[in-house]
């Protein structure tokens, strides 16, 4: 222990400049996040100390990772494990003490400042630490992985320059591996399946880095350690190339969302009064769509899910036909529930489209079995009512789901603009953010919205534990009339809907005597299964959906 402390003090003395740089950059980065997310950037205008700090804070996002890399590599190369001329090799150093000292140094000067940085930011934005514990663990794992890689490069190289070159090679190889994983995952029902492969890749890479470090500190035979590193990279490449999609499916099945566990989805031809389904944009696709009613039971009252299908249609004397379809939204009855942005319910007409051209004509009049998988993507929904702040008033704070938001308003050309500035913890989990304006108990849909309605799906940030999203909507409120009795200052309220990802689940289904010719939309209308009304079109991917 004495030796650990002794070497630690020496390394602190030797590397005080890099340590100081890490501490200053960590502080600047935290300051930058607060200024940037807390709206303080408004004050950093013109040539002022604020501006200088703001610019430095902006640079810290680039400089901090580089400085952390320099710190880790430098401290390991203080007692370099490569070469035979270092003075420490013939001194009574205990290798274990040396390893522990490097661990202590990195923990004190790299991990601890970043942890404090995260804790301060999480507390500053008002999130409870107990709630952020999982995030801190996840970020710690990410950070630990990066440190392991840097340390592996350091134990294999004699100088910072060589470590940097090795690092660049490692980054290129990692990116290629990730690309290969994403490519091999393209056959999945959604790209989420790739995350298992990426996670497995990172675990293999981390184990490889750990093996290199442990071997070097124990035996100090660089060519063999480098060989272990190369083998780990090869293992990553092989894993990326040959990651079995069946394993992804298996893991996805194991990873069923607890919120969706009780949900059952069954085909039921006897359902009545179903809402009109969304129609495909292309007329040809619409003419080839067949439908079947499904009922969801066991849905918690704040959960909805999108259902997509992967199935095959088998009929006597015909080759099987692959079947898919646009996703359909299932949710508890929204009537009387303020939690959902759209009307809808647990009974829906699910479309089935044949993948291959010509299949429809081939099987149209067949009588067969439709069987396959139902993929459920769950969302937890929430709503909040917020009084509209008057223009020039300070921003009004509110919380919805796991987001903390402020809203300001201003009027322009008879329009009311609402600006939402929201923060949530990494990784962002808000799938949808929608706004309605209520004026004198009448809902007004926005005429235009722009910004980040979703924070989900982004790759977790390396440095900041906070995700920021901006959203802005404009409304054209009706002129107050004598009838409304509201006078010149109408009572306005904002209704905000937010949805968070709540995991996935899979179900299997089977429909006997599936006859495509009898299951067109017109046929279901004639049977009285569909509620009369307008058929909305499925919007092209990427366009915003207005609340119904």
């Amino acid at each position, binding site marked *: 222990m*004495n030796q650990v402390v002794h070497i630690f003090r020496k390394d602190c003395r030797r590397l005080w400049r890099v340590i100081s740089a890490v501490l200053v950059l960590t502080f600047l980065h935290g300051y930058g996040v607060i200024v940037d997310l807390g709206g303080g950037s408004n004050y950093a205008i013109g040539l002022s100390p604020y501006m200088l700090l703001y610019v430095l804070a902006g640079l810290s996002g680039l400089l901090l990772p580089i400085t952390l890399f320099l710190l880790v590599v430098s401290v390991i190369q203080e007692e370099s494990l490569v070469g*035979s*001329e270092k*003075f420490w090799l013939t001194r009574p150093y205990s290798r274990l003490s040396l390893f522990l000292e490097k661990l202590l140094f990195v923990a004190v000067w790299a991990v601890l400042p970043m942890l404090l940085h995260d804790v301060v930011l999480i507390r500053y934005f008002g999130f409870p630490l107990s709630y952020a514990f999982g995030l801190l663990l996840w970020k710690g794992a990410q950070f630990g992985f990066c440190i392991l890689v840097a340390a592996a490069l350091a134990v294999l190289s004699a100088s910072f320059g060589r470590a940097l070159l090795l690092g660049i090679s490692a980054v290129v190889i990692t990116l290629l591996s990730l690309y290969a994983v994403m490519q091999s995952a393209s056959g999945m029902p959604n790209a989420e399946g790739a995350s298992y492969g990426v996670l497995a890749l990172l675990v293999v890479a981390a184990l490889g880095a750990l093996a290199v470090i442990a071997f070097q500190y124990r035996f100090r035979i660089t060519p063999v350690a480098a060989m272990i590193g190369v083998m780990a990279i090869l293992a990553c490449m092989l894993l990326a190339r040959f990651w079995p999609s069946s394993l992804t499916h298996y893991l996805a099945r194991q990873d069923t969302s607890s919120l969706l566990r009780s949900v059952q989805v069954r085909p039921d031809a006897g359902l009545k009064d179903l809402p009109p389904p969304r129609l495909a944009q292309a007329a040809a696709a619409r003419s080839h769509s067949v439908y079947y009613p499904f009922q969801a039971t066991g849905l918690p009252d704040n959960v909805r899910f999108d259902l997509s299908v992967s199935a095959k249609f088998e009929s006597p004397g015909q080759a099987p036909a692959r079947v898919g379809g646009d996703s359909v939204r299932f949710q508890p009855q929204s009537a009387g529930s303020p939690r959902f942005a759209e009307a809808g319910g647990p009974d829906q007409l699910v479309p089935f489209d044949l993948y291959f051209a010509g299949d429809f004509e081939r099987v149209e009049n067949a009588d067969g079995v439709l069987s396959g998988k139902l993929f459920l993507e769950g969302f937890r929904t929430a709503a909040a009512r917020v009084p509209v702040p008057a223009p020039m008033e300070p921003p009004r704070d509110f919380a919805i789901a796991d987001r903390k938001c402020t809203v300001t308003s201003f009027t322009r050309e008879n329009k009311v603009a609402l600006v939402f500035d929201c923060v949530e913890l990494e990784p962002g989990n808000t799938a949808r953010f929608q706004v309605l304006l209520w004026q004198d108990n009448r809902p007004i849909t926005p005429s235009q919205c722009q910004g980040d309605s979703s924070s989900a799906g982004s790759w977790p940030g390396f440095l900041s534990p906070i995700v920021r999203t901006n959203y802005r909507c404009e409304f054209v409120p009706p002129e107050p009339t004598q009838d409304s009795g509201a006078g010149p200052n109408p009572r306005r309220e904002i209704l905000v809907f937010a949805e968070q990802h709540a995991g996935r689940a899979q179900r299997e289904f089977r429909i006997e005597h599936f006859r495509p010719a009898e299951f067109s939309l017109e046929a279901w209308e004639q049977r009285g299964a569909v509620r009369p009304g307008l058929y909305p079109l499925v919007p092209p991917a990427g366009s915003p959906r207005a609340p119904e």
Partner: protein
Amino acid sequence: MSSVISTVHLNKKFPSSEAVLDLNLEVPAGSIFGYLGPNGAGKTTTIKTIMNIYVPSSGSATVLGLDSCRLSTARLQQIGYVSENQELPGWMSVNYYLDYCRAFYPQWDTDLCDALVKQFDLPRKRQLKQLSRGMRMKAALVSAIAYRPQLLILDEPFSGLDPLVRDELVEGILAISADHNWTVLVSSHDLAEIENLVTHVAYLDRGQLQFSEELASLQDRVREVEVICEDSPQVPAAWPEAWLKPETSSAVVRFVVTDFTDGKTPEQVKSLFPRCRDLSVRQMSLRSIFISLAKSHR
């Protein structure tokens, strides 16, 4: 006399070369052992293998009774090591370097350290990287001596040093080893200084040990013989294996005998050169022996 260092069939191979071949070496306790050989002979490789910087390809080395591959911190606390190529932490001042090293050695003798710093006139506050090569070697030597190691290993400690510094170092080592009966292994190809220092010598050439013995015995055994003849002498065909290749001039034959024995060798010379009248036998300096042997092995 027990051995402080011994190697048994030690081999060290690199991908491009074989540095040490089947080395069997014994360094007696209390000796000042000169490990000699031309550049590239494998001296430094042997020492690095002994110090567990390199792992032997085959065979073994034992240091202070322990396999070199298992040199523990306790054993390293008994070994001092100074090398011409050693990378010292240049950012440290002399004082900080000595303080830093002190913590690794429970038996560190602060008085001895201070005395050596004074004797070598080391500037305590100056950084190691700012010191001259000689001064750095002195600082390294102080840091390797101040804990009174049982074994001091010096790898080419004098190369590149000016004569004054060399003398100071040699005197320092001699004085300390005489006082404390240490074992010193010193490798060098700078033989003039070694001769005054060593009690034993070993000679390595192209990775192979040629001999290893006490210096006095070597100097008794290896002699230069000069024979003056009446006419141009003929070198006999049956030339003894232990005699190095002779040099001849008009009436003189000069050669080195590596197995000289009083009485027997002069008789043997006379029988080989019956028509020669004068025979003189001279003791050789270590440098002369080294050069003769090196030439004969080329």
